[in-house]
């Protein structure tokens, strides 16, 4: 079966002066038409870099070093820049985290909207202008005829994000990548923007890749979820599977850390202990092992393979394998192993 978007073993590395930072390592997932895929993970887990890699808008010194990205079966990695430009903003669009800085301050929003339309559809200016006004109306901006002559600084944050959405959807892309589209907005505006995106998805039928660290957003919007940690996929599956049957310790930790309104006022939030791994020195085994309560010796030495825990649910965690195989966990170390690893890390630091 051909997928709308097929990402396979995608690897992106930043060649920094202090070493190679493997921001994305072996990421694979598929996206079907009209579906919403959520990518969730903490800061620095490679969510955004994955998105930029798909569009190939990485900045120096970042580079895709392996894997493939197929759109409608057509390979995008290695495509000439000239061809890739026809994909960006046309087949795949993106909206960014901070609408305050994502619009060019010295051009009118009409100018910026029309730029993409003229570029990809070769429409004459007058028609492009009409299309721009139509798009602004579609994203719920009042008086669009007036707005296209305004500059970004004359609009509020929510309005700017609407303009960004209008810009991204002007050429009716097959895929919209939303890179934390609501992180920089007020809570009430967040809800409006998410609602707008879902509404437009129903109208226009594009697929969405929703990048966020807000599990609430994922729960509300997504059909499928990818959980990322240290540039790797920990777990992917349908949203109900991930939420009700998490099979990776990191996902479980994330879900545990969500504040619950029914909890006692005095009860503390449950954090995931430890700090994110250093991407310059990825551990040999599972990158989450140093923070994992159930880490075993095998976790420290060998990267866990992807393992089908259910239909439509994959997790990269040794615990699943061992539970299936039936080896006694205690024998393999458990928390002892994690502690030993932490000690080794301290020694190395000294």
């Amino acid at each position, binding site marked *: 079966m051909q997928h709308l978007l097929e990402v396979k073993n995608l690897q992106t590395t930043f060649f920094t002066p202090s070493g190679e930072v493997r921001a994305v390592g072996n990421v694979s997932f598929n996206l079907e038409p009209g579906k919403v895929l959520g990518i969730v993970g903490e800061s620095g887990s490679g969510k955004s870099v994955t998105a930029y890699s798909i*569009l190939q808008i990485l900045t120096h010194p970042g580079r895709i070093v392996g894997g493939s990205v197929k759109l409608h079966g057509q390979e995008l990695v290695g495509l000439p820049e000239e061809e890739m430009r026809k994909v*960006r*903003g046309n087949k795949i669009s993106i909206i960014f985290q901070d609408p305050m800085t*994502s619009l060019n*301050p010295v*051009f009118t929003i009409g100018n910026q909207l029309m730029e993409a339309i003229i*570029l990809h559809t070769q429409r004459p200016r007058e028609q492009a202008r009409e299309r721009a006004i139509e798009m602004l109306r579609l994203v719920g901006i009042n008086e669009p005829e007036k707005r296209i002559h305004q500059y970004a600084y004359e609009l509020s944050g929510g309005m700017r994000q609407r303009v*960004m959405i209008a810009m991204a959807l002007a050429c009716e892309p097959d895929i919209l990548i939303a890179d934390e589209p609501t992180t920089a907005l007020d809570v009430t505006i967040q809800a409006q923007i998410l609602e707008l995106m879902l509404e437009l998805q129903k109208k226009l039928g594009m697929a969405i890749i929703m990048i966020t660290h807000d599990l609430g957003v994922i729960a509300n919007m997504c059909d499928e979820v990818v959980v990322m940690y240290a540039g790797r996929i920990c777990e992917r599956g349908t949203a109900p599977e991930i939420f009700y049957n998490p099979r990776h310790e990191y996902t479980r930790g994330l879900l545990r850390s969500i504040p619950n309104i029914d909890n006692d006022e005095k009860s503390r939030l449950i954090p995931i202990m430890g700090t994110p791994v250093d991407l310059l020195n990825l551990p040999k085994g599972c990158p989450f092992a140093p923070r994992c309560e159930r880490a075993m010796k095998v976790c420290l030495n060998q990267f866990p393979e992807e393992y089908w825990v259910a239909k439509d649910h994959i997790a990269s965690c040794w615990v699943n394998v061992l539970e299936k195989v039936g080896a006694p966990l205690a024998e393999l170390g458990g928390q002892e192993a994690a502690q030993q690893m932490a000690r080794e890390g301290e020694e190395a630091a000294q």
Partner: protein
Amino acid sequence: MNSKFLIYMFKRLGMALLTIFLVIAITFFVMHAIPASPFSSEKAKSDAVIKALEIKYGFDKPLGVQFLNYLWGVLHFDFGLSTAWVGFTVADLIMGGFSYSASIGFTAAFIAIILGILFGCLAALNRGKWLDSVIQVVTTALVSMPSFVVATLLLLFVSFRLGWFPSLGNQPGGMVLPIVSLSLYPMAYITRLQRSSMLDVLGADYIRTARAKGVKSSKVIYKHALKNALTPVITYAGPMMAYILTGSMVVENIFSVPGLGRLFTNSMLRTDYMMIMGVTIFLAFMIILMNFISDVLYKVMDPRIDLA
């Protein structure tokens, strides 16, 4: 917007008049405080001759009256008579000198701005590569060399050793070396400004947005980045234009260009009160005008800037 702009213009005009008044007052009184007179020279003149000259130029009156007379004259665009160049009005001499200085200066400023922006962009786009390093080294050297060194070196090597261009400004082709020596410093300075502001802008989110729209990378640079990156250059180019158009004392003297800078040094050496006053006012006027032009250009380049 329009009425706001008018109010802004009035404010600027008021400020300009006040500035020019202060410039006149300070120059006038400081100049009259120095112990030399336009008529003192090695060849002793008789007291009667000096007295007659002072009466002719109005220097016999009390200082306050002279000041008011001068102001009254300036209000009628009458800047008086030169005492050093007998028979010429100050206005004529300034205009004569300015025509030389401005033609050299304008060419030099034009070259400096165009090449500065170009080299700055090239350096920023090739950050860390050899081209960037070459541009950085050369511009650092040029920025730290005083103009009399650059002009003298050019005179020595290009004119005398190689003989490519004449050394005197009034010979055919003689304008080339003064133009080059005038333009090198601002060009290097603009290159450095443009490089750093371009690097800032290239990292901005809206550049990523433009790329994500599928805009050609060359167009991302000359449309989306350049217009944002030019602001610091405009800030610098305004006053720079004023100085360069009114002539460089050093460069004009080295290449014997009969421009405003040379006129100014000569009138100071000969304590020509009227010329010094006239040139100072003209310089102040040019600086005010160029600052105004760069402020308006700001608004054109960046709509966020509120002039009023």
